[in-house]
């Protein structure tokens, strides 16, 4: 049973609770970095490494860290690992470091990593936390890679820098720019919702979270009946 649940912990991060596409966390690096597939992989792998290490450490220290100062403690731990990863990237892949720019050190404040520390690692055992971190990291990387490939293919006509369609088709530059990032992001969220079976009709969701509910005729009529 334990094994199966570990497998579930791993796979939930990829589709069902994909940090980018379902939990909509870490949107900033997702939009900023995915202009090319190579950048997306660089970002995804760095974040996965940090996530794995920080989840293990925080899970180990979860009984030592006082509850009141847990967020600063988490951030400090995460910042340590980010510094290590940044130095490694600078040493061995300077081109990726240059392309990612400020977004590499900004992994410190990435919602996914802090979110997993707060929601999972501080409440669960070491092995489970490690698997959770790995699954979430893979999910993050896969989502970034999807976006990176789509945006690079449409916006520059290449994949990983290899020309695919740029020889016979003029690339659609807007996909490399910020608005194209939002287009692709929205489409992928819709696709992930469809795949994970979370698509609901408006009637099933109800009016509770609608910002216009106080002015909506439907709501006032229902309210009058009730």
């Amino acid at each position, binding site marked *: 049973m334990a094994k199966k649940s570990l497998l579930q912990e791993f796979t939930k991060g990829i589709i069902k609770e994909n940090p980018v596409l379902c939990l909509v966390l870490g949107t900033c690096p997702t939009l900023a970095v995915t202009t090319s597939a190579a950048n997306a992989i660089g970002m995804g792998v760095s974040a996965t490494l940090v996530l794995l290490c920080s989840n293990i450490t925080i899970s180990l220290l979860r009984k030592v860290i006082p509850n009141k100062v847990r967020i600063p403690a988490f951030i400090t731990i995460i910042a340590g690992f980010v510094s290590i990863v940044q130095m490694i990237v600078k040493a061995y892949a300077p081109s990726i470091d240059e392309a990612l720019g400020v977004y590499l050190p900004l992994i410190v404040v990435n919602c996914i990593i802090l979110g997993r520390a707060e929601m999972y690692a501080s409440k669960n055992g070491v092995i489970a936390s490690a698997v959770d971190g790995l699954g979430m990291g893979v999910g993050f990387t896969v989502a970034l890679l999807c976006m990176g490939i789509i945006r690079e293919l449409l916006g520059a006509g290449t994949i990983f820098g290899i020309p695919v369609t740029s020889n016979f088709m*003029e690339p*659609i*530059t*807007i*996909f490399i*720019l910020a*608005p194209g990032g939002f*287009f692709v992001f929205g489409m992928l969220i819709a696709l992930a919702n469809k795949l994970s079976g979370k698509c609901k009709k408006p009637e099933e969701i109800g009016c509770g979270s609608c910002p216009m509910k106080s002015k909506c005729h439907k709501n006032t009529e229902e309210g009058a009946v009730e």
Partner: protein
Amino acid sequence: MVGKLYASSSPHLRQGDTTRKIMLDVIIALLPACIASVVIFGYMSAVLIAVSVVSCVICEYICRRIMKRNNTIGDLSAVVTGILLALNYPVSLSPLIAIGGSVVAIVIVKQMFGGIGQNFVNPALTARIVLLTSFSSKMSNWTEPFAYLNKNAADAVSTATPLADGEHLTSYFDLFFGIHGGCLGETCVLAILLGGIYLVARRVITPLIPLTYMGTVAILSLCFGLDPIYQLLSGGLMLGAVFMATDYTTTPLSNLGRFVFAVGCGLLTMLIRQFGSLPEGVSFSIVIMNILVPYIEKFTRLKPKGFIKPKKESASK
């Protein structure tokens, strides 16, 4: 006796206006500009308009089918979007890119937000901006007027639009009749004005927004020390003011709101023309003001006559 008594809510007096009739009026109003574009730029402009219209209608049909909604191609709004979109293209544009523009306008801007009446920005203008940022060189490759008559010359003789050439080389006469480089529908001011007058006469639009928009541009160009007539007649201003800024869905409801909207459009247009890196700013300014419409509506909401703010009332007591 009982069967003859109809109980219905107001309004009881109705005009025969339908979306289809209004859109038909807009299409008729756009015809002079289409004809002018064919006369000035040759048969390729007719091909572009046809491709754009057909692809818009097909996109709308497929979209509604996939989304399992009732089909709305009969209301002709997709045709209007297609014509407006085509009037924003340079004549040298490839029809494939025009199809891409139709997909953006209909699928992304219109249908994904719920179809006619639900889009928060003008579909044709947004598609134009997307194409302009994607294919900036192709979207601003202006052909000289009547280049198609001269068969010895190269296929497309590139030229600058009157706004981009720096010195004001084009005469008022050429500007008014559209004998200069530019988008298909924006050059011939006469044709656009004819369409605008038809729309006002048929009461499809009120002249408030176009006149305020043009007035703001004229006053601001005087302030910047530019030639106001030249600024009014060149670029996409007339097309934008008459057909784009008067779109029902994306403009405020009250007259005060429309006034604010049009002044904002004029202000942004002149700021972009004067200080921006692009020569023309009509499409950007209208789309930006489209996005601001909910806020304009909020601050210009009509108050019932004799309405006193509840807070003030309690304070005075």
